[in-house]
């Protein structure tokens, strides 16, 4: 088990290093000169030169990469003498637009994104598993078919289209909900709930659909296993067969995918937050894309990759804890 953990952690470190290298490559090697972009309209060759020296862009690529990595772990100082600024670790650089440290911009907006993500995750897990169970236990009935039709639409409708439809119907036409705004829970719990309800539903719908289909298929599969037949032959009542023998193996894969999906949620949050105008990390990223604010995009990319990689490890550990069969294989 210790060896398994160690190799796994070494793999994670390697992947994170590659992610840094890749991000560095995209933003410093492939993209047009950042110095020109910082400089803006009223620019002179001398000014560009000064920015280049300040940011260390005139040094060899390898040196640039090591100071980039160093900045991430230990912080770095830009420039020398009077105009030097120290960027504390984890240093992701400064926004071209607002000159704020990217790290602070991200952490400022993280609570909004986390609220959207956690609420959506709770919703989709509940709805997805419930829908899938209904489908599997009432297979080929009206219940099953309607659940699966809803799931199919959820998979097929792009989330921004769904967001617009929902907002048009609930806010503009029926006026059941106010326009979403990033209200804090402490200020006004009711308004808070109303604001986040639509983002939760939109973000959750697609995931819930996938989970419902998966749960249904898994439960149907497990119910045809020999040990379930044995349990039934022993005379165990149906609900006990389902609860004790069928649910755990059927839901274990769901738990693992859930970890992955949750870690990779930023992609969906990007669109949801933009459409509903919630000022989270996703909207910040979308705005940065529009303004080509590369340090911010780069910071978010690194952070998202970090979440996914760490999510992967957590899922692996979770899987070993949930499924005894894997434990035997790894030891």
């Amino acid at each position, binding site marked *: 088990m210790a060896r398994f953990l160690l190799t796994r952690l070494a793999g994670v470190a390697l*992947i994170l290093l*590659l992610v840094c290298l*890749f*991000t560095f490559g*995209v*933003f410093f090697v*492939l*993209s*047009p000169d950042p110095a020109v972009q910082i400089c803006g309209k009223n620019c002179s060759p001398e000014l560009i030169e000064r920015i280049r020296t300040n940011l260390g862009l005139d040094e060899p690529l390898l040196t640039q990469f090591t100071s980039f990595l160093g900045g991430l772990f230990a912080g770095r100082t830009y420039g020398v003498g009077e105009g030097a600024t120290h960027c504390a670790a984890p240093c992701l650089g400064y926004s071209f637009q607002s000159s704020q440290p990217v790290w602070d911009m991200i952490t400022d907006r993280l609570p909004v994104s986390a609220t959207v993500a956690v609420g959506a995750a709770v919703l989709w897990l509940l709805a997805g598993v419930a829908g899938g169970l209904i489908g599997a236990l009432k297979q080929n009935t009206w219940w099953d078919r309607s659940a699966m039709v809803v799931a*199919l*639409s959820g*998979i*097929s*409708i*792009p*989330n*921004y*289209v769904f967001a*617009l*439809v929902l*907002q*048009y119907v609930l*806010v*503009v036409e029926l006026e059941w909900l106010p326009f979403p705004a990033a209200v804090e829970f402490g200020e006004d719990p009711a308004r808070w709930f109303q604001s986040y309800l639509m983002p939760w539903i939109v973000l959750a719908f*697609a*995931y819930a659909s*996938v989970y419902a*289909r998966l749960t249904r*298929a898994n439960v149907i599969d497990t119910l045809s296993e020999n040990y379930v037949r044995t349990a039934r032959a022993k005379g165990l009542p149906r609900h006990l067969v389902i609860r004790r023998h069928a649910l755990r193996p059927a839901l274990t*894969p769901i738990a*693992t995918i859930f970890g*992955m*999906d949750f870690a*990779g949620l*930023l*992609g*969906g949050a*990007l*669109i949801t937050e*933009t*459409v509903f105008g919630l000022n989270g990390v996703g909207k910040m*990223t*979308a705005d940065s*894309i529009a303004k*080509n604010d*590369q340090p911010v*995009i780069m910071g*978010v*990319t690194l952070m*998202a*990759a970090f*979440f*996914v*990689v760490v999510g*992967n490890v957590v*899922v*692996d550990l979770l*899987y070993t804890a949930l*499924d005894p069969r*894997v434990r035997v294989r790894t030891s």
Partner: protein
Amino acid sequence: MTAIPIQPATGPTKGPAEGEEGAPSTAGGAPPPPRPRAWRALARDKGAVLSASYILLIVAMAVFAPLIVKVSGWGPYEFDQTAVDPNLAGVPLGDWGGAGGEHWFGVEPGSGRDIFARIVYGARVSMLIALSATALTTFLGVLFGLLAGYLGGTVDWVISRVMDFLMAFPALIFMIAILSALPAGNRSTLLVVVISVFGWPYLARIVRGQTMSLARREFVEAARASGASSAAIVFREILPNLRSTIIVMTTLAVPGYIGTEAGLSFLGVGVVPPTPSWGQMIASSVSWYSVVPTYFAIPGAFLFLLVLSFTVLGDRLRAVLDPEGVR
């Protein structure tokens, strides 16, 4: 997961434990090649037929776009200022976003461009990108899957690590990063390349597993014993047995790519204006959605139905062909 997850995809799931397994666990090995009976079953399936018809309609629309636009009367880049109200910030005149005999689906608020023409040309862009990305992904996925599964050893190790690496990435974020960092030259080609680079491992992983189990089967051994070269074994013995898997995986991948293209264009890193694309049309409708709901509803409905059709068709194909390993 067949698609790059803007939304969670419909395809096979990516449990980490699955990825590390070598071959599919069932001893049976190869899926049977598609039989005529399978196609007949599909032709009797209402959902499959409807989906296929809609897809064909969109393909026809894409192919004959210039002709269709001649009939409808307005091109995708023509501005019609007479169809919008300059006093109301360019809101289309008439109900339903100005839809009627002149402009079948109404006009864009502000510019007065014909929505029908832009839908038709948008189909061209979306289909072209999605299908090219599918073709490239399939090529890469099958090639690397076969190589890894048949050759094994170091080749397999290297390819598998590259696949693990690509699948561990938040693909959407990375696609955005790459597309926003690169100069906006030929965006369509870039989109295809970027989507394919992140898309092929999902097919390759399954092809690899099936190749490994096929390579151990008697008919492959027989071919080898009778002196067939490695290339002949791979292309004549193994590849035909992978046909069902490839067909199903490919069909299930297309909706993901359509959604990805639309999503990236929606975020402004995809197809560059004025070239119409459905995702981009929806993006520009966001600021008008409460005033002119048809402006987002029409491209939204076309996009939704296209993704739905490919998903249903893929599902039905999978049920009929029943390849192993594609779950």
